[in-house]
């Protein structure tokens, strides 16, 4: 190896010199000095560039991964329970209500099942946004409802509204169904899901709740705060 080859190797990776290069440095004073100088320089660069990482960064990363994982697990569990709920509800409804009425319950449950992430997220919803949705079924909110999600959504017979309300006993989905009418209140319950469909000024609205207490709390809220046009 000559000095030029040594220098090329030194510049490419001074910490991983080949046996040939090290042998050359033993016999060439200039290259030995270059090597020592470059290795010192590398150490200085490394020290100068060694900035501290933010405190707690690793914990935040692990937490973020854990939350993502748990959220997925909760979604899977929710979807599984809703599928079971749909199956049971559909079976019961078809046998008792004929061909029209059970569709509203099934529609509401299927919609919630299809978008389970809305049960977990929390968004700020402006009152006017909520009222625009409520207006579709002829309602108006006169106060503040604990809304965590609200958006328009496509339903089989036209657009409706998908609203999620927080209660002390779990979140309840309020489906606004302007194009689906029911003459009487419909209700179906399984051990982990309760669905009620009520008549609205235009069409109907459905409540999909995880338990009786949550449903009762939402119904009381709506009774206090909804005004019908």
């Amino acid at each position, binding site marked *: 190896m000559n000095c030029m080859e040594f220098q*090329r190797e030194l*510049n*490419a*990776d001074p*910490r*991983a010199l080949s046996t040939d290069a090290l042998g050359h440095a033993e016999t060439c004073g200039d290259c030995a000095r270059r090597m020592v100088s*470059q290795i010192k*320089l*590398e150490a*200085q*660069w*490394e020290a*100068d*560039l*060694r*900035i*501290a*990482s*933010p405190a707690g*960064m*690793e*914990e*935040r*990363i*692990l*937490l*973020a*991964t*854990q939350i*993502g*994982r748990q959220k997925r697990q909760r979604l899977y569990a929710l979807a599984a329970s809703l599928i079971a709920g749909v199956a049971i509800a559909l079976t019961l409804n078809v046998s008792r209500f004929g061909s029209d009425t059970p569709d509203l319950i099934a529609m509401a449950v299927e919609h919630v099942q299809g978008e389970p992430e809305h049960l977990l997220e929390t968004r700020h919803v402006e009152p006017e946004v909520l009222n625009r949705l409520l207006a579709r079924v002829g309602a108006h909110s006169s106060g503040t409802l604990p809304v965590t999600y609200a958006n328009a959504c496509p339903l089989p017979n036209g657009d409706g509204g998908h609203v999620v309300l927080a209660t002390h006993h779990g979140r309840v989905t309020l489906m606004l169904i302007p194009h689906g009418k029911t003459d009487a209140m419909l209700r179906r319950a399984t051990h982990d899901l309760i669905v009620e469909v009520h008549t609205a000024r235009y069409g109907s609205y459905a409540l999909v709740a995880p338990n009786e207490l949550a449903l009762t709390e939402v119904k009381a809220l709506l009774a206090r705060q909804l005004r019908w046009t």
Partner: protein
Amino acid sequence: MAWFGIGSGKATLYETLVRGYAPELYRFAYWLCRDRAISEDLVQETCLRAWKSWQNLEDQKQAKQWLFTILRREHARLYERKTPERVWIEDDAQWEKVAGQVDMPLLEVREALTKLPESYREPLLLQVLGGFSCREIAVIVDATEEAVMARVSRARRMMREVLDVPVQTREVMK
């Protein structure tokens, strides 16, 4: 921090990797973008992607290299629209011409580093901070080993030049 419960080999290894490499990933990210908040986001995104695509890690011994590769992609994705077109200078004569046009004031190591073209800064950082060989860097940056050797060599020459040149002599390369 108890994590994911007992018996999850994947989770245990993941936690070890995060704790072991996150600071190095952060330093690499920082010297790429020079923004602490973005750097942490990049490291977090890198780790989350690693978790999601765990099946792509064929050899656990390659985990560090794999993480740096992901971070580099994340950085590129982040700056996809902002980053000007890269000019790869592989020819020595062309390099000397470019280097000759560059006036450099006396700069500290950190400042000097940030003035290097990204195509030189990146492999140099991977070697100095990451401790990777040219061959490993070639895999990370998707280039040949020879190209990486050329880039880190030029980066070192340029750094030495910048740090040794007296004040008022040269302007910084934009």
